[in-house]
């Protein structure tokens, strides 16, 4: 009996840790032969529900680094990268960043992909003078005292401005629903503040818990508000689709706008239910640079069907911005690279709308894009399409 109990305890321990053991293989390393290397750490969720975000960020940056390496690198130095899966968890992200900085001795960190993780990791990278490129939208990420942190995209405030302009220009009655997680709450507070500043009010103001299957009460209350458009503040694909299903049940047919519609997972799960949904994005799909990037990206990573466009494009352009800085410093990172980036770098690359200068960093501006650089994309035929400028 004792042996059976021992066996049971061992089995419990083994199976409890099984997923962690399976994910331990998530660290990937690509090493270039030779003495001169620029070590880059890539940190983000590489498995699980948010894997789309991390994987596309990883692949977009790898594509740019491979291109630069193929041209001979920077000042004779080639990029070398190490990928760590942080499971979108701040504690694991901090541990991953420490491993990259102190064990792998990285020069530059790309990520973490999520704002929550990036806010925690910034406390580690800033004092260690590691240039950190974050894709997250939280405004606090590029606060003045974090001068080693640069953003590959745009802040939530700039994104909210773009959303508000679009809503104000095209719709009279706006309803909102937000996920009751940190991401949804943050976006809700940002949009609510902006609505109040402009003297506007939501005709329906609802929330949802992403673990809830049935969103009929939310759908009926939204219908009661008689809106022209629903602003969905959240990114959980299953919840986005569950709400769309509930709306369909009660015959509610309105426009949708929200960041959750930009995800591959939402399109995969939702199909027809998310057709016509819109989202503010950093990538203009009419841009020739995008078309060229798309071809290269699909070929390199064997991608078929829809993918998280901007998650891939932003790090791609960010690597080219970094390359400009590294050219100036002859491949040296740390303080020299920060100064070089702050002197001003710009790339008319994949992100940014047609006719705008594209991604750029300077001393006064650590965010690659602003509200005027953004576009409105829509889900059409299961793919993403850019709407004409307003």
């Amino acid at each position, binding site marked *: 009996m004792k042996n059976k109990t021992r066996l049971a305890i061992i089995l419990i321990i083994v199976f409890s840790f099984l997923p962690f053991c399976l994910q331990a293989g998530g660290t990937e390393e690509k090493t270039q032969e030779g003495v001169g290397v620029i070590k880059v750490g890539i940190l983000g969720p590489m498995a699980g529900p948010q894997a789309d975000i991390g994987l596309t960020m990883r692949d977009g940056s790898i594509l740019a680094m491979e291109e630069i390496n193929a041209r001979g690198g920077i000042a004779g130095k080639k990029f070398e990268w190490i990928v760590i899966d942080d499971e979108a968890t701040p504690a694991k992200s901090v541990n991953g960043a420490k491993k990259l900085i102190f064990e792998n001795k990285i020069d530059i960190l790309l990520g973490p992909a999520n704002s929550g993780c990036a806010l925690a990791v910034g406390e580690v990278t800033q004092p260690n003078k590691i240039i950190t490129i974050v894709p997250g939208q939280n405004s606090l990420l590029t606060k003045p005292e974090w001068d080693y942190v640069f953003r590959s995209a745009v802040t939530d405030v700039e994104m909210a401005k773009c959303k508000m302009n679009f809503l104000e220009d095209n719709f009279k009655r706006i309803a909102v629903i937000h996920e*009751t997680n940190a991401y949804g709450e943050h976006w809700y507070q940002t949009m609510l503040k902006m609505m109040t500043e402009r003297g506007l009010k939501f005709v329906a103001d609802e929330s949802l818990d992403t673990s809830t*299957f049935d969103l009929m009460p939310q759908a009926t209350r939204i219908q009661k508000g008689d809106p022209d458009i629903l602003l969905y503040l959240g990114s959980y694909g299953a919840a986005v689709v569950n709400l769309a299903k509930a709306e369909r049940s009660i015959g509610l047919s309105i426009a949708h706008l929200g960041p959750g519609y930009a995800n591959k997972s939402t399109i995969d799960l939702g199909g027809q239910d998310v057709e016509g949904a819109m989202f503010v994005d950093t990538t203009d799909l009419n841009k020739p640079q995008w078309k060229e990037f798309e071809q290269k990206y699909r070929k390199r990573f064997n991608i078929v069907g829809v993918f998280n466009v901007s998650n891939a494009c932003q790090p791609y352009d960010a690597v080219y911005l970094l390359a400009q800085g590294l050219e100036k410093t002859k491949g040296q990172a740390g303080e020299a690279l920060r100064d070089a980036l702050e002197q001003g770098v710009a790339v008319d690359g994949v992100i940014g709308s047609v006719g705008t200068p594209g991604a750029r960093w300077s001393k006064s501006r650590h965010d690659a894009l602003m509200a005027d650089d953004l576009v409105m994309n829509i889900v059409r035929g299961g793919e993403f399409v850019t709407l004409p400028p307003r």
Partner: protein
Amino acid sequence: MLSQIVFSGIYMGCIYGLVGMGFALIFNSSKIFNFAQGEFLMLGAMLYVTFTTSLNLPFGIALILCIVSMGLIGVCLEVLGINPLRRRNAETIRIVMVTLAFGIISKNLAEAIWGKYPLKAKEILKVPHVQIAGHLFRAQGVIIIAVTAILLMILWYFFERTMYGKAYRASAFNVTMAYLSGINVRAMVMTSFVLSGILGGVAGVLVGPLAFVSSDMGAMLGVKGFCAAVIGGMGNPFGAVIGGLLIGLSENMVGGFISTRLMQGLSFMFLILVLLIRPQGLLGVSE
């Protein structure tokens, strides 16, 4: 609007009730709370996705396989986790810890096998909605309500009209007397785990097409099912359904007519109220 909210409240209540029935059956026979009940549902849903989507089996065969598999998983929990401790007269809290551990193992195994990404389950009916009195209702919701009613009738027949069911009730009422009367008490406990596994499996098959299937789906439903079982009267499977309906309907009515922000806490509010005012539950503990 009212009809839609009431309808969805009823089918969500039925789901809570099905999970709650699992809790009640095991509590009846062994006086322990099986906190892996939510994970039974999750495993049932995962198996349903595998059978229908990966193996492309027809619905009927997939359902039978889910029922058999979940019944076996119930047996595994009883044989490997519960019985060894019961034979040594272990404290109830230790046995409850085993069910918690089983739940964690199940969730982690499901993540390892099926991943964390939500999966699509095949709809049982090809039509997404049915029209009743000029209103559109989700077809899956109608199925959930109908299946719950059928399961309740089967359980009633089993407990009230069969010798085995009466033996089960006798063993739940007084283990010693049942044993002295020649009832195989161990078999009754095993039966409760098999039935709970089956109920979890059926609930999983019903819930899967309603939303999406993921390894963490059992947690919330397990908690709500537990609340339903306590509110209805712990150990009374029929009370669990009443408790589930109360939670489902009140959540939807409050969400639909007052505020969606108040929905999630309602089941716990009812739980506290019932424990304070009528600790034996609405229908009382089953005898």
